């Protein structure tokens, strides 16, 4: 099944709850936007989006970049995710993340990502992630797991 990014954002309950928006999509690169919302704030005194929300958008954007490169809904899973927090996010501003899958092997995908605010050059965070890539599609993986638990 060919990859359709909007499905990944709307059919995933947490991505939908976060209100993630697709800003831009390329053959191996994706940009997502996390709109500012009060429920995502870490410290009400500053109004800054929580670092945990940043890790969520990083994880989603990196996974989407792998799907963009694969161009199909194969089952993938994050092996590891590293985030460097470069500076605090600006209060009351949405966060964008651009993720690029720069290497894809038969079993593994390598991704790098940056988080930033629109029209501001200073970056909020850097991330790198490694994903395992299955030969199975998501549907086949789900059927296999169901079979194993019966």
């Amino acid at each position, binding site marked *: 099944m060919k990859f359709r990014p909007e499905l990944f954002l709307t*059919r*995933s*309950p*947490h*991505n939908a*709850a976060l209100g993630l928006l697709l800003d831009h999509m390329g053959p191996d690169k994706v940009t997502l936007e996390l709109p500012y919302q*009060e*429920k*995502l*704030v*870490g*410290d*009400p*005194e500053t109004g800054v*989006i*929580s*670092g*945990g*929300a940043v*890790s*969520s*958008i*990083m*994880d*989603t954007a990196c996974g989407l970049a792998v799907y963009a490169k694969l161009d199909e809904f194969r*089952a993938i*899973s*994050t*092996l*590891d*995710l*590293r*985030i*460097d*927090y470069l500076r605090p996010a600006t209060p009351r501003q949405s966060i964008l993340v651009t993720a690029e899958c720069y290497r894809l092997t038969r079993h593994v995908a390598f991704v790098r990502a940056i988080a930033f605010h629109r029209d501001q050059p200073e970056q909020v965070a850097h991330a790198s992630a490694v994903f395992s890539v299955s030969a199975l599609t*998501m*549907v086949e*993986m*789900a059927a296999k*797991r*169901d079979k194993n638990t019966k």
Partner: protein
Amino acid sequence: MTLSEFITSLPGDVDFDQPLECIPYAMFLGLRLRRVSGCLVTVMRFSEDLIGSPMPPAIHGGTIGALLETAAVIQTASAMAAAHLPKTIDLSIDYLRPGQPGKDCHAQAHITRMGNRFANVQVEAWQDDRSAPIALARMNLQVAGR
């Protein structure tokens, strides 16, 4: 009440179980702080809104990351007597097993080194089997210096 005030208000010597009402994002994720047999454990109560991949269904990796990070910040703030909150510098997460829907996630942090400026913290997350963690994290936090 700020997170700092919340941590200093925690009863010193009895077990407790409280939601993290001072942090909107923690309430969005359904996080609670418990002291169980003297140890602080952060719990993410399961809800359908935590699911990332719908097929096969699994808890969103970002929420697990947030749970790990919150546990580390609270453990470190508690050790600092929460004079002010530590700041996350970096975070490295290994995802070992998928987070299964329908089950709560738990995280416990351990400070491996508390320095004057930086703390190094390791965190484990699990669901119903502590010996089969779903994720591990390692973080460096800045504890002093503005």
